[in-house]
């Protein structure tokens, strides 16, 4: 198949659908879908990129087999579906949304089972009685890998039909393994998680086919632009931009006060500009602009006040670009290896 465009697969059905559209919009590479019934879309800001909507369970294998170049998937889906020797790699492992955990949940009446080791013991005991521990899940591979690694060797997997959470109550499975964001559904179905029963901590990630990206300079360039925007957006999320007016004798004098606390004096240092005072204002005023980590906001405000700052405004930057795009550099290194 001949495709010049870069094909980006986006979940059409799961919990990730809406958040992905919102996230790409916030990255200034909004996906424009002419109608909700169309299964293709464009990114007007990125000519040469074509979006295809796919079931989230299929996206990893679509990329593995090469019918899409990039895709947005939950990390747990990727781990479940990727080929061990395939060409699919993770480009961005934390897009910052779609957080959930793949957990083991057992009936809450099982007061004798609190850890995976308990479950391993129970499965061995059930086996001696001629029964098997039945596990209902959509994540067959991850469950097998995790259980085997914990010495839980005797179990059988039961196909999920409908809501997994109901399987123990309906009697066709003993326990379930499923994703949960809040645990509410599990609790409502009288299920509890195990102390060490988190199999994967997941969130939305961007994956791609390294073979296809290596073959096409055009696709690689579009990928670079996507990575630039995602990284800048993610970076910006951790920072505030603060501006304060400070009275001082000179720019240097103000700078000296501000940089007395280097950890809240901006990334390189403050930007200081003279403020041309209105009639009636006394002395020299300077506007100091700093970019600081979000967690240090109050600290920074107090510091600026302490050195005479007033009229302090705080803004969230939309994007923050470093000297290079790290995720793109990582991708290039990965393509070199391939």
């Amino acid at each position, binding site marked *: 198949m001949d495709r010049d465009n870069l094909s980006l697969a986006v979940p059409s059905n799961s919990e990730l659908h809406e958040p992905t559209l919102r996230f790409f919009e916030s990255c200034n590479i909004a996906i424009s879908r002419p109608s909700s019934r169309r299964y293709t879309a464009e990114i007007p800001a990125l000519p040469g990129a074509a979006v295809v909507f796919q079931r989230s369970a299929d996206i990893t294998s679509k990329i593995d087999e090469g019918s899409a170049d990039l895709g947005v998937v939950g990390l747990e889906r990727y781990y479940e579906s990727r080929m*061990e020797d395939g060409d699919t790699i993770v480009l961005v492992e934390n897009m910052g949304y779609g957080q959930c955990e793949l957990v083991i949940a057992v009936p809450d*009446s*099982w007061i004798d089972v609190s850890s995976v080791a*308990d479950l391993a013991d129970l499965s061995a*005991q059930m086996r001696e009685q001629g029964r098997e521990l039945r596990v209902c899940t959509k994540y067959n591979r991850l469950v097998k890998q995790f259980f085997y690694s*914990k010495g839980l060797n*005797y179990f059988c997997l039961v196909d999920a039909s409908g809501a997994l959470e109901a399987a123990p109550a309906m*009697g066709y499975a003993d326990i379930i393994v499923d994703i949960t964001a809040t645990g509410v559904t599990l609790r409502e179905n009288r299920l509890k998680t195990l102390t060490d029963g988190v199999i994967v901590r997941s969130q939305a990630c961007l994956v791609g086919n390294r073979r296809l990206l290596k073959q096409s300079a055009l696709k690689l360039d579009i990928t670079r632009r996507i990575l630039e925007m995602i990284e800048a957006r993610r970076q910006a999320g951790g920072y505030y931009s603060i501006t304060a007016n400070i009275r001082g004798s000179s720019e240097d004098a103000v700078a000296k006060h501000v940089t007395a606390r280097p950890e809240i004096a901006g990334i390189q240092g403050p930007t200081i500009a003279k403020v041309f005072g209105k009639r009636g204002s006394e002395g020299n005023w300077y506007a100091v602009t700093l970019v600081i980590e979000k967690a240090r906001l109050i600290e920074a405000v107090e510091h600026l006040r302490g050195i005479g700052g007033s009229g302090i405004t705080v803004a969230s930057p939309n994007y923050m670009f470093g000297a290079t795009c790290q995720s793109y550099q990582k991708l290039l290194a990965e393509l070199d290896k391939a």
Partner: protein
Amino acid sequence: MDNKIIRPVPGFVDAQGADLAARGAIQSAIQRLFKRHGYDRIDTPILEHTDLFLRKSGGELASQMYTFTDQGGHQVSLRPEFTASVIRAFIQRAPSFNLPLRWQYAGPVFRYEPLERSRYRQFTQQGVELIGATGLEADAEVIALACAGIRELGLSNCSLDIGHIGVVLSLLDGLNLSERVKATLVSSLPELSQDAGSIAAVKDRLVSTGALKPASGESYLVSLIGCLPEQQAEAAIEGLLTGLRAETVGSRQASEIGARFLEKLKGSDKPEHVETAMNLVAKLSSVKGKPAPALKKARAIAAEQGIDAAPLEQLERLSDLLGKDTGMQVSINFGLARGLAYYTGTVFEIYRNRLPLCGGGRYDGLVRALGGEQDVAALGFAYNLEHLKEGLAEEGKTTKLTEGD
């Protein structure tokens, strides 16, 4: 459509030409040798019920099997080894055989291993089972046969390690440990024999799998129930379950949950016992070397711990029986565990420059575990044919073997 080349599945390879000829030549040479020693051929299906391998082989093998459900709903696995299949075939027609029975086999086995650990997920096993033979002479016969095969092929620089699972098991029996801890310790033998740091690693594993509880403050209620007499404790737990309004959903009854809860409270291993056991096992499993000094060291440990020294006598007689006929360097190695849970007595391995060429041992409990009506003593070993071929290639001896073809 994308006309991409379809490659073999990772861990599987094609063979042809000289490579295939070498494998064939090795296999026929070994087969003739086994035949001369009275071993008849048996072939068993590649596909078996998963349960056959799970019954006694132990958990690790389960995690390596290619298992699936066929269209008829049977849970089946590609065989990861031959012994279970051969014993199954024996049990099926047991009354019609005169014991001892000597069987040889050869064929592919399948194990899903991380590709970093092994390049092959399919390899060829060729081996024998000697069924219904007790006594050290049988052990000696089988080990000597394994050595004879190596000589037949002309491989040099090989070494033979002999261990005895019985020694370790009797050591552990005296310590009041749960089956789970015992099994973990036996399977950790090779690791424990390494160095002092490995004790900590094994301990971590015991804690992480819950076999060993880290010292922690249990709640007052829980320890109280743990101290109650059986009937009262059961009533207390039933009351607790009702009180928690935890409806019992699914297949497990309240009484069953309660019983296991109690068992868990009372039956967990004492950390100090496990610690003692680990130190002892580490001490014993690090005993390795020439038979006479190694056995002397093991005897000292046995005397110190008051364990049965009979298996040690057996090992001594075994090494006498084998004498110098092995043609290779013989060591006693109590750290040998072989990774399969069914061994009960002598175990052995032959290496060439750390590459394992063959392994086997005695598994007297397997016949009954697989449904046989009585205990039948049995033992056997298998070569890894690809490893034999690799060794021969290194010594430049493959061509000599295939000259006749």
